[in-house]
Structure formats: structure tokens, C-alpha cells
């Protein structure tokens, strides 16, 4: 099982991660393919990605496809064209995106929001997953959302994901802080929450931190990994037999101080030790 970092084209990330990379503690990197709208990364980032790609230790992740936006076909085409150009010059072990939608008629950017299930939307999503697979030139998958508007969203997301992934034999990126948000916000326990998801499809997991805003747990990626997520990781790993990598995510904006950087490295080394002890 690989311990990985989510890499960003930001010197705060480089400054924080470099000691870990230099001591060869980092088994893999995840690169957010659309972080620069598919423009070229800085030379240092390109070189770093190439080093991990050369050893088949590079994972791709997208944030702005907006898979289930039904009135965003031009947006989809442009995004997929960008990905196809990216994967023509760089290969990933797999490429993942997010469940949900973020743009709509009259909206060009946003954050992923949950969607109510329908058979028509499922068929639409499966068609987009096939396009994603073609552009990715690799296995593709989806990440579970943090936000649920209600218990219906909590209950149905796992099944919706399974039905989107099955036709492309896709992988589930199980984001444990996102699950943690739902557990905290809706008073759920780990076992019941994990049972909602197609864990046999999990190939990658995310761990990260977040924060409370007006009493609601949010996936803000700006804090250290909380104990609840570490406990959830220990609960989840034995139930995910195909999992091969766990990625630590923290935004570079939250890596500005020495204390934040030390905390990040401590979280990564804790992850590394936990995986090596299995």
C-alpha cells in the first residue's frame, strides 16, 4: 500500500514536501490535472511529476469536470480535450473526478453539489464516464462528495456511484474526510456509513482535514487530519481489498507557517507508519 501526497504547483507545497521526497518516504503523487486549467506546470513540478510517472507512481485527479451537469456539454468537451492533451504527454495509473455537479446553464464555475438520482441522469453520467475513460487513456473513477443536503443524499450516493462506475469498471476514490463530514453532520457511525459504498471498487483513499462552520463539518482541506479520520482509515482499509494508495491532501494555503508544514509532515509520516504496519 502506497503512501502518497496530493501535489500542487505551489512553492509552499514544494517546501513542505521536499524533505519527505528526499528521504524517499513518498511512494506516489497525485496531480490535480486541471489545477492550472491544463496549462503547463512550473518546471520543478513537471520534473517532479516525471520522476514519479517514470516509475508508474503518478495518479491523476480532476476537480472541475462537473460530471453530472446536464447543460454543460461545451464545458465537458473543453475539459475532456484538455485532459486528452495532458494524457498525450503524461500517463497516470488512473484518473479520478468527483461525483455531483458544479456548473449549470448560466454558471461556468462552482463547487461540487449533490444531485437527486434518476435513471436519465445515470445514463447521462455513464456516457460521460466513457468519454472520461477515452480521454484519460487509463482506468477512471469517482470520488464521493462531502456535502449531502439530507439523509436521502447520504443514503443514495454509494449506490449511484456503483451504477456510474460499473459500466466502465471504474474505481472508487474513497475520501475519508468527506465520509467523516457526513458522519459528523448526520450522526452516523463508521460501519453503517462504509456499508453504503461499493468498497470492492476502492483503489485509492484520501485523508485530509477540514473545519467546522456554524456547527457543520466542512471539507476545507485547511487543517491537519483529525482523529476521526485516522480511526475511519483503520476501519476502512480492511474492507477495501483492492486499495493500493492513500493520499494526504492539504491545500498549499494551509502550509504557510513552519508549524503547519511540520504538522503536514507529521501527518504523512503517521500515514506511512500506519500503512507499513499492516
Amino acid at each position: 500500500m502506497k503512501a502518497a501526497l496530493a501535489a500542487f504547483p505551489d512553492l509552499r507545497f514544494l517546501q513542505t514536501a521536499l524533505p519527505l521526497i528526499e528521504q524517499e518516504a513518498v511512494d506516489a503523487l497525485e496531480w490535480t490535472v486541471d489545477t492550472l486549467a491544463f496549462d503547463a506546470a512550473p518546471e520543478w513540478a513537471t520534473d517532479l511529476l516525471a520522476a514519479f510517472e517514470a516509475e508508474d507512481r503518478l495518479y491523476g485527479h480532476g476537480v472541475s469536470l462537473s460530471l453530472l451537469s446536464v447543460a454543460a456539454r461545451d464545458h465537458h468537451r473543453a475539459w475532456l480535450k484538455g485532459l486528452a492533451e495532458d494524457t498525450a504527454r503524461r500517463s497516470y495509473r488512473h484518473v479520478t473526478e468527483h461525483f455531483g455537479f458544479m456548473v449549470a446553464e448560466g454558471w461556468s464555475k462552482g463547487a461540487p453539489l449533490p444531485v437527486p438520482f434518476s435513471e436519465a441522469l445515470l445514463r447521462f453520467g455513464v456516457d460521460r464516464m466513457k468519454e472520461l475513460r477515452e480521454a484519460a487513456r487509463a482506468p477512471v473513477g469517482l470520488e464521493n462528495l462531502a456535502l449531502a443536503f439530507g439523509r436521502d443524499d447520504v443514503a443514495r450516493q454509494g449506490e449511484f456511484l456503483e451504477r456510474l462506475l460499473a459500466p466502465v469498471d471504474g474505481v472508487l476514490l474513497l475520501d475519508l474526510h468527506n465520509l467523516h463530514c457526513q458522519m459528523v453532520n448526520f450522526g452516523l457511525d463508521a460501519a453503517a456509513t462504509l456499508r453504503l459504498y461499493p468498497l470492492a471498487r476502492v483503489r485509492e483513499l484520501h485523508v485530509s482535514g477540514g473545519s467546522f462552520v456554524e456547527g457543520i463539518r466542512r471539507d476545507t482541506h485547511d487543517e491537519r487530519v483529525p482523529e476521526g479520520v485516522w480511526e475511519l482509515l483503520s476501519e476502512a482499509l480492511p474492507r477495501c481489498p483492492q486499495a493500493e494508495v492513500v493520499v494526504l491532501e492539504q491545500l498549499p494555503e494551509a502550509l504557510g507557517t513552519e508549524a503547519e508544514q511540520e504538522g503536514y509532515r507529521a501527518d504523512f509520516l503517521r500515514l506511512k507508519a500506519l500503512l507499513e504496519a499492516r
Partner: protein
Amino acid sequence: MTLEEQALYQSALLDELHRGGAPEEILARLKARPELVAFRQYLDSIEPRMIAVGVALVARWGER
């Protein structure tokens, strides 16, 4: 729910989250839209406190 109805719902949700107000008011405005009648059961399942998160996300990340 047809795809056309889904498109109307997605656009209406972003518009109403952007327009803002109390979460109960936002939900009431969505439920009052005749084009969203197919979503009535789903809208009834939404908890107002979680709508507040949607408002924050659209305010932070949404762009027309």
C-alpha cells in the same frame, strides 16, 4: 425526472443559492417553482442547515 428537468433543477438550485436568504426561504422558493415539481419529494428531504453550506460554496466558488 427527465434530463431537461434535471437541467432546470441544477440551474434553479445554483440561482437560488446565489440569491441567498434564510435556508428555509431558499427551499420555499425552490419548492414554489412549477418547473421543479418532479423534485418535490427530494426537496422535502433537504435539511435547511445543509442548504447554508450550498450558499457558502456558491458564494466562494460560483462564477457566471
